[in-house]
């Protein structure tokens, strides 16, 4: 008279209770790394002091863009050229260019737009002699954007490419 359904097996299939994977940032090496000889090698090979020197243009690391644009503006030509020259003259240097956008639009599209900006900066650096093998272009899209922006002055801060170096 009644249809009996036993749901036990089908319903318990998707219990994910014990499967959560917490990921934590690996602690950043603070200051020089453990081995003294490595330190001096990196310091020498990479001239890390000039990257850190606040009076050196190499300490400046952000390039800002206009809305929905990937053109490197004239005001950043010197900054881009200085980093390109540094990369070209330090064969062991590894640079990452990370593109960013404001938080309007889709996350994946903004990831692509941030990438377009980092590629644009890379191309400018190629002109000044920096090799692709030493540069990785990536994007964080809108993931680091200020989500409370109400005007363009605020959005403008999110439309940028950040320069970082391995081992610095």
């Amino acid at each position, binding site marked *: 008279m009644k249809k009996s359904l036993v749901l036990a097996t089908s319903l318990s299939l998707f219990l994910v*209770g*014990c499967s*959560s994977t917490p990921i934590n*940032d690996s602690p950043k090496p603070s200051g020089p790394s453990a081995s003294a000889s490595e330190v001096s090698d990196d310091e020498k090979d990479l001239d890390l002091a000039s990257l850190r020197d606040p009076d050196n243009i190499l300490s400046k690391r952000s390039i800002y863009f206009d809305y929905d644009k990937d053109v490197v503006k004239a005001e950043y030509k010197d900054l881009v050229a200085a980093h390109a020259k540094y990369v070209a003259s330090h064969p062991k240097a590894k640079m990452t260019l990370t593109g960013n956008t404001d938080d309007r*639009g889709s996350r994946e599209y903004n990831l692509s737009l941030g990438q377009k900006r980092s590629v644009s900066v890379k191309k400018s650096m190629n002109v000044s002699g920096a090799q692709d093998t030493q540069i990785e*272009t990536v*994007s964080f899209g809108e*993931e680091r954007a200020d989500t*409370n922006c109400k005007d363009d002055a605020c959005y403008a801060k999110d439309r940028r490419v950040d320069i970082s170096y391995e081992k610095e």
Partner: protein
Amino acid sequence: MKKYNLSMLKIFKAFISLLLFSLIAKHAVAIEIIEISGGGTKQINIAVIPYKEAATDKGNNLMHQIIAADLYRSGFFRPLEVNGLINKPSVLSEINYPEMTAIEAQVMTLGQVVINNNRLKVNWFLVDVSKKTILTTMEFSGPAAQYRAIAHKISDTIYEKLTGIPGVFSTKISYISKNKGRYSLNVADVDGFNIQSVVSSPQPIISARWSPDATKIAYVSFEKKKPIIYIQSLVTGQRTVLANFKGNNSSPAWSPDGRRFAIVLTYNANSQIYLIDADGSNLKPLIQSTHIDTEPVWSPDGKSIYFTSDRGGRPQIYRVSSNGGEPQRLSFEGNQNLSPTVSPDGKMLSYVTQDEGRFRVALHDIQTGQIMKITDGPFDEAPKFSPNGRMILYAHKVKGSGELSTVSIDGVVHQSFNIQAEDIREPAWGPFTK
């Protein structure tokens, strides 16, 4: 009154024997009980009578409350106030039809819940009030811990019986939450209960996608300071890297058979769409351009891939054969169109359309090209079809933080999604499971 009920019982008995046949038929024809409500929506008035059961812990919902909430959220039903009823029948013979008619019930459900040795058994009925006939009677049983799951199965059965469309109350969704700077990919029941964290990280997680068999989720994690695609089992928690190439690895899209992915890679150039086997082998470009090509999604038959590209200047929706070839532009209205998703029957696209500064969810009939905007914006994103194609789940921003909502595909029934978190985004709706 008693006499009346007794005579009804005889009719029921006759009907129940007929019912056997209708239950054997896989998809029993839905009866038509439809009323135009004030909002212009077609809704069924249903009396969800409290099922007879021993009181559970305070704070836990009872079976009938879970069922009524499910049916209400679907937009197809108006659960009636039943607390004031004199008669709360749990078996057919106790039904007082004049009282049900008085509250304008078109259908009613009633039943009994028995928990014994951690086993749960529910005998329940769905009754057509005006015809005084049983539409469905079933006995569901399972472990007592599956209390809510069994309630959802009852909701699914009622929904399908009365609309002819499979219910989605037993399906799951995933979303990303951000809480105190920590990101978490979570899975929850579609009513927002039973939240489980799949993975959490201090760096962003985006673009989670369910495998067609609902046992795995692919997602993009920035935990290594760049986007890398992972696949994680929901059963064992084990995860593997699908793609970690130079540059960005993002936008995973499972093929309908679950064997392949469309993904987006950049190396040192713009975003491009590639195909790769689910084990990370056999990588090859789908199409090649100098522009942004991203957000691939497969048609249900696996023959086409829809994606977003800025090859025309602004981002628009395109379609290309999953064997590659020349893409065809599909979206022409609006300043930009992004984040395509395909309905389960393959006939509709939903995407985010932007004009006049507002980002809204649009529905696009692929055959006719007809477009309807079904949300109001201003910052709506990431639309996903329900597995039965009747609803769309999407994210929107309220004062800088994200929330989830659903909207019926006719744009009429809007509901905010019942999950409490500081900031939630990137929803995905898990497939039907059998």
